[in-house]
């Protein structure tokens, strides 16, 4: 039998970020504190990208730094804050400056819009959002949602436009070089994001062998067929968490929320934590081995 070469989709953070042009539309993975593409957000800032539009259910520190650095000022989104710690400080300030444009949806609405894109159908029906200002008040889209009479039941039903973004970006625990991805813990909307995007980028804590993937096909959440680039990047979601690998850095988040309440504080944070390090390795060095070790998850608990 002829042996198939295992396609190698590995690439560095710097290189993959170069492939994202100004103005790109990105379906953004991670949910709340879990597996957000933090290192990617920081590299978008270092490379001075502009005009990005993000589609997501909800993200937190990762998107707030993009807003602070004015990399991304357009969002189709359901939630934006630093859960339990308060409003996202840069977002709050840039909003007051009138710089940020939101198209507001609910979490399920965003997840269904990704699902519709993954199925390659133009819309998905939903029984939510109807009756609220989210239906009418709009800033970015011509067609935010449509209410039709259901041809089967006669009832009103809301249709949401599907999303097929230029890029889908997620963080996960493991993948092989061909992009077969294992996700442990909640999946959020990441499965749908990788399936609806024109190109998908996956950041993983660890590259494993194709052989290991094939030993456990039930654990493959995202087949390599959907994945264009794989980046091995330990602590790629810091200061947030990755189930089973490391916990969030609560002290850093609290510091961030406090510091960035003013523009000066944000500029200082930006200079020190993002622009002041050459790359992700530089960031990890700055955080320090001691702190990273403290954040390492206890395998028994997953955090």
């Amino acid at each position, binding site marked *: 039998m002829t042996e198939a070469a295992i396609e190698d989709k590995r690439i560095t953070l710097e290189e993959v970020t170069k492939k994202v042009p100004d103005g790109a539309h990105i379906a953004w993975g991670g949910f709340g504190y*879990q597996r957000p593409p933090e290192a990617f957000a920081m590299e978008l800032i270092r490379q001075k990208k502009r005009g990005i539009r993000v589609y997501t259910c909800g993200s937190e520190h990762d998107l707030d730094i993009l807003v602070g650095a004015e990399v991304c000022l357009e969002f189709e989104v359901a939630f934006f804050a630093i859960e339990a710690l308060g409003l996202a400080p840069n977002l709050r300030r840039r909003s007051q400056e009138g710089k940020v444009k939101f198209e507001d949806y609910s*979490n399920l609405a965003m997840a269904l819009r990704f699902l519709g894109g993954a199925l390659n159908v133009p819309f998905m029906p939903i029984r939510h959002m109807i009756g609220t200002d989210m239906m009418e008040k709009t800033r970015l889209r011509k067609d935010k949602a449509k209410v039709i009479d259901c041809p089967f039941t006669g009832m009103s039903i809301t249709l949401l436009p599907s999303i097929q973004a230029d890029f889908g970006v997620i963080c996960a625990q493991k993948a092989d070089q061909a992009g077969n991805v294992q996700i442990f813990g909640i999946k959020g909307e990441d499965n749908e994001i990788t399936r609806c995007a024109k190109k998908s980028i996956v950041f993983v804590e660890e590259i494993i062998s194709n052989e290991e993937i094939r030993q456990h096909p039930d654990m493959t959440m995202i087949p390599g067929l959907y994945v264009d680039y794989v980046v091995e990047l330990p602590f790629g979601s810091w200061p947030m968490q990755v189930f089973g690998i490391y916990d969030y850095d609560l002290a850093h988040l609290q510091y961030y929320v406090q510091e960035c309440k003013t523009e000066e504080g944000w500029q200082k944070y930006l200079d020190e934590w993002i622009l002041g390090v050459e790359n992700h390795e530089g960031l990890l060095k700055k955080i320090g081995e001691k702190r990273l070790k403290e954040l390492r998850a206890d395998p028994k608990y997953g955090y």
Partner: protein
Amino acid sequence: MEMTEYSSTEMMAVCGAHAVKDGERVFAGTGLPVLGAMLAKVTHAPNAIIIYEGGYVDTQNKDLALSVADSRLGYRAAASIGLIETLGFLMMGGRVDVGFLGAAQIDEYGNINTSYIGEFEKPKVRLPGSGGGNDIASSAGRIILMFTHDARKFVKKLDYLTSPGHLSGPGSREKLGLIGKGPALVVTDKCQMDFNPDTKRIRLKSVHPGVTPEWVKENVMFDLIIPNDIPTTAEPTAQELETLRTLDPQGIYLGKGQK
């Protein structure tokens, strides 16, 4: 029963817990609702099933979570899936009995704003937005609202309607095909309110110890219905407080020494 000192935040958490019945399927957001749901489960409602929108189903976490996606919720969950599962199949599927929500503003029908303060065109503050709030408010069997009392939160007209309460009154949810029955209870640090079953308008249900109905009436910006004989909310028992503090030993949601 021996009385113990307690904070107003603890009072809210205990009121939230009391609103959960045994065996119910509970959808909890971060913050006080988590504590309320967890307290219910370890006291009078051991068979309550708690669901978090990130994908955790039937949780038995040992540590308190900061995020609805927190890894802490994954420890010993019965399943760990995704949003289409929790907010789609479970919530929109009509399989959730009770959902907890917060609010920046509510109106007389329990409609909720969590999106903008000020005009939409030029808002003063951008709030977190719907998140799963609209989904929960639309489809959970009933809704329990929890937030600290501030007159500016009880408005005649919302700056933005994020999540449906009883909309414009009786029949309006049904007309839009919403599955859930809407808000049933509002818990603040001063009182509890419920809704008149006929008019769907909010009314005072009980005042916490030391609060008068008059104070409440003055601290809402619409004409609150105040029935006769408003009872005083039962105080938390010593055991409830002890259990509650065990659930949040660091005072993340309960605060430290705060009254």
